[in-house]
């Protein structure tokens, strides 16, 4: 399944979409995998994960049909 990336997270990884490894099954595991695969993400002031368009807690399970996105610090307005 694809993970969407926005803003500076997209710039750091160089990708607007990444393929999630099959063994990543919750938000905490996704963050750990992202930080390891793209150490530049560790520089972000914050990195939230949205599951189905809602900010998700670390414990949230990720299912294969979920819409998952990496949300770096927002800067609208």
């Amino acid at each position, binding site marked *: 399944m694809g993970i*969407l990336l*926005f*803003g*500076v997270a997209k710039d750091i990884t160089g990708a607007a979409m990444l393929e999630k490894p099959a063994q990543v099954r919750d938000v905490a595991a996704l963050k750990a995998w992202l930080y390891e695969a793209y150490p530049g993400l560790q520089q972000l002031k914050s990195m939230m994960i*949205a599951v189905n*368009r*809602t*900010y998700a807690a670390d414990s949230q399970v990720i299912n294969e049909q979920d819409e998952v*996105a990496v*949300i*770096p610090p*927002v*800067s*609208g*307005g």
Partner: protein
Amino acid sequence: MEILIDIKDTITVQEALDFIQSPACGGEVIFAGTVRNHTKQRPVLKLFYECYEAMAISEMQKIATQVQERWEIQKMVMLHAVGDKYPGDIAVVIAVAAAHRGIAFDACEYVIDTLKETVPIWKKEFFADGEIA
């Protein structure tokens, strides 16, 4: 409460005004955020706004729901522009109409403060010296 939420290329204060003006409301408070020609004294050429649209609309609706639960507001508008924006261009407009002005000020400020914290929109700054941040 009647709500207008939109994300698009170009937004105007007038469309927000047109939506909120009503003979039933006494006080209207409007916030317009415009692109500044400098950030911390560095000249800015343009901004680029990117957005995760489906989630941004959903987060804006959540803010509207919070406002509705907290204040007696008749009408509310939240507009955000995306794409290239130049100094003087309007990036965001929040407009609130209420019977009493105090709550219109409180609600309008709450909306823009919360939007800047929670709505997935990102800006990239293009400085005159060539740097992009």
